[in-house]
């Protein structure tokens, strides 16, 4: 049985105080883990799809995203 | 030239300035060739590496001023030298050093302007540019020697004041002083005190780069590379060194820049008086013109005329109190300067209408002679 998405510990965390809603992360995320909210800020919608590739973190101009696990860059 | 044999020497004003810098502990010079200051660069290119210092000829005047500031934040005592057009070009970065409170010395050997003007002609036309050359408000310290000996001594003093007050200091002399050769007695090491900037006594965690810690209002200055990891910006900043747009912080910052010097005027302001006690005519002159004025005082006294001289050694801050006091007893005040009227306006302010103020003003590349000054004395009496 699949664990509901909201109960998964997400490898991706978004600091909404720093996020300016540019949309880079959810545009570049290859597995669509992130989506934009009504302010176009990033929210984690599908943590179970995260491969910890860290593309979102590396391209967040505002250092608002942290991805646990995955390759050290 | 051997360093140790320097005692009494015949030298040029520009050379005395360079030797004064070495005496004061200068370890960095950046400059760009410009007449009539070039000898300062030439001499320091040879002398600085001898004492472990560094010289660089930069690509332009602007870069020279920038490099001096960069060197100073690492802890070096740094200077540049220039003349009118170069002094104009340096102004923006001088403003940067003012607001970031980076100690440094700028020698300006004055030639006739504006523009290229008369590169080899003496003048004193940069007096107001020294005071107001940058945009915005800040006090300036400007020293003005009238002899080769003073070129040496006031260069040492310029470094001392730069370090003491954490500010750029100008030493400005006209081309006559810069290129004149005179006997100079060079002091032994330690004979003239050498001042070094105050360093922080606290560790990096509690250091605030622009927070004064005592009544001097001068914040201790860490050197880059000492582990303080602090920020220097030309933006108006608060005591932490980071930019602020809060009106009260901006006001406090600019006020402190003024107060750190203006609260200590007796320590800063310097001038010399000659036969001023009973003077009915008060002369005011500086630099090479003060030598002619001094001669004129002697000649006038020999002719029974009560004439005295005030010679500002700090053009800025201007010794206005001394002028005011002397003018109170005088029938006339005469200002002699190699421009068409610069410090004379400051004198008028200081005199406060107590006596008429006349000028012996000249901006034709020729020095002002004692005869001209004497003629004016006789005319106004």
């Amino acid at each position: 049985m699949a664990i509901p998405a909201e109960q998964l510990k997400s490898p991706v965390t978004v600091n909404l105080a720093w996020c300016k809603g540019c949309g880079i992360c959810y545009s570049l995320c290859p597995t669509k883990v992130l989506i934009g909210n009504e302010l176009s800020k990033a929210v984690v919608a599908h943590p179970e799809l995260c491969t910890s590739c860290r593309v979102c973190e590396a391209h967040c101009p505002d250092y608002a995203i942290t991805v646990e696990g995955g390759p050290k860059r | 030239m051997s360093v140790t044999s320097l005692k009494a020497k015949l030298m040029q004003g520009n050379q005395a300035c360079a030797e004064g810098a070495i005496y004061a502990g200068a370890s960095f010079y950046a400059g760009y060739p410009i007449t009539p200051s070039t000898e300062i660069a030439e001499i320091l290119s040879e002398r600085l590496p001898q004492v472990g210092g560094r010289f660089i000829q930069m690509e332009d005047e602007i870069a020279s001023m920038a490099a001096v500031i960069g060197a100073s934040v690492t802890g070096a005592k740094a200077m540049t030298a220039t003349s009118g057009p170069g002094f104009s070009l340096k102004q923006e970065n001088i403003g940067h050093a003012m607001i970031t409170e980076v100690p440094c010395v700028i020698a300006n050997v004055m030639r006739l302007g504006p523009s290229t003007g008369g590169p080899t002609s003496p003048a004193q036309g940069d007096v107001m540019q020294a005071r107001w050359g940058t945009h915005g408000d800040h006090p300036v310290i400007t020293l003005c020697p009238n002899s080769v000996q003073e070129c040496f001594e006031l260069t040492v003093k310029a470094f001392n004041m730069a370090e003491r007050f954490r500010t750029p200091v100008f030493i400005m002399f006209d081309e006559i002083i810069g290129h004149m050769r005179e006997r100079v007695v060079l002091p032994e090491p330690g004979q003239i005190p050498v001042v070094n900037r105050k360093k922080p006594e606290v560790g990096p965690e509690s250091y605030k780069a622009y927070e004064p810690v005592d009544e001097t209002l001068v914040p201790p200055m860490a050197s880059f590379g000492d582990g303080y990891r602090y920020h220097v910006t030309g933006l108006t900043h608060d005591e932490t060194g980071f930019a602020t747009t809060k009106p009260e912080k901006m006001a406090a910052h600019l006020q402190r820049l003024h107060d750190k010097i203006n609260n200590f005027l007796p320590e800063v302001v310097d001038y010399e008086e000659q036969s001023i006690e009973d003077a009915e005519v008060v002369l005011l002159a500086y630099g090479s013109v003060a030598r002619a004025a001094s001669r004129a005082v002697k000649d006038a006294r020999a002719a029974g005329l009560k004439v005295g001289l005030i010679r500002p050694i700090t053009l800025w801050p201007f010794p206005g109190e001394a002028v005011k006091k002397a003018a109170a007893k005088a029938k006339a005040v005469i200002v002699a300067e190699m421009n068409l009227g610069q410090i004379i306006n400051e004198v008028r302010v200081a005199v406060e209408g107590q006596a008429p103020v006349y000028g012996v003003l000249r901006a034709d590349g020729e020095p002002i002679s004692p005869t001209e000054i004497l003629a004016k004395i006789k005319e106004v009496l």
Partner: protein
Amino acid sequence: MNPEIAQYYRVNKLPHIWCPGCSNGIVVRSIVEAIDKAGLDQDKTVIVSGIGCSSRAPGYMNFDTLHTTHGRALAFATGVKLAKPELNVFVITGDGDCTAIGGNHFIHAARRNIDLNVILFNNNIYGMTGGQYSPTSPTGTKATTAVYGNIERSFDSCKLAQTAGASYVARGNAFNTRQLTDIILKGIENPGFSFIEALSSCPVYYGRRNKKGGPADMLKWQRDVCVTQAAYDRLPEEKRAGKIITGVLHHEPQPEYTAEYAKIIEKAQGGNG
């Protein structure tokens, strides 16, 4: 913020002032990652900048930082490096700062081959002042001072650096952050003038007016047009137009200025007995 990089930032100064989608923050991250990989002593590393959007970066970086006047960062940095050669000195500059008002300092710092690591954030526009064309704005660019289109030709700042004498020249972009970090790291390792042009992007003043899409579109454009020299050479002729070569473009070690000056000091002191 990822703890891997947090030590290199003044975290209490964040979030930064840059616009949403401005890629300056991405480039700064590559700089600190390169510093981390190079193992530089944070207390012996200085960041110098001029004026403009990118030049605000040092305020967020946890080093000794010097924010100077417009165009003059390289001249300030020359003073820092020459006065204290043991410091690692970085210069963060922009296309206007480095190649317009600071053009003279740029070519002469390169000519001296003084050991500075220069990262030019090229966003092809003056952002801080609201979108005027810069020396790297392509011909035809629309800008607030080129409303009919820019008629000037643009600089290739990498060719300029190489011609002027830089011993290391590279170009990267904000999309390919691994490559960018890597070429900055190689620049750090080069004892001499290392010049790295980092293609940045300004979605607000450049992108919007020139119909380049949103922030992500501008990064994807970088992904699509940037190729290494090797990849470019493999491309058929008809696919080469509009490509931008990235990677290390030039590396030819030359005598370094402060090392040469140390010899001057030795000579001057030896000669003096």
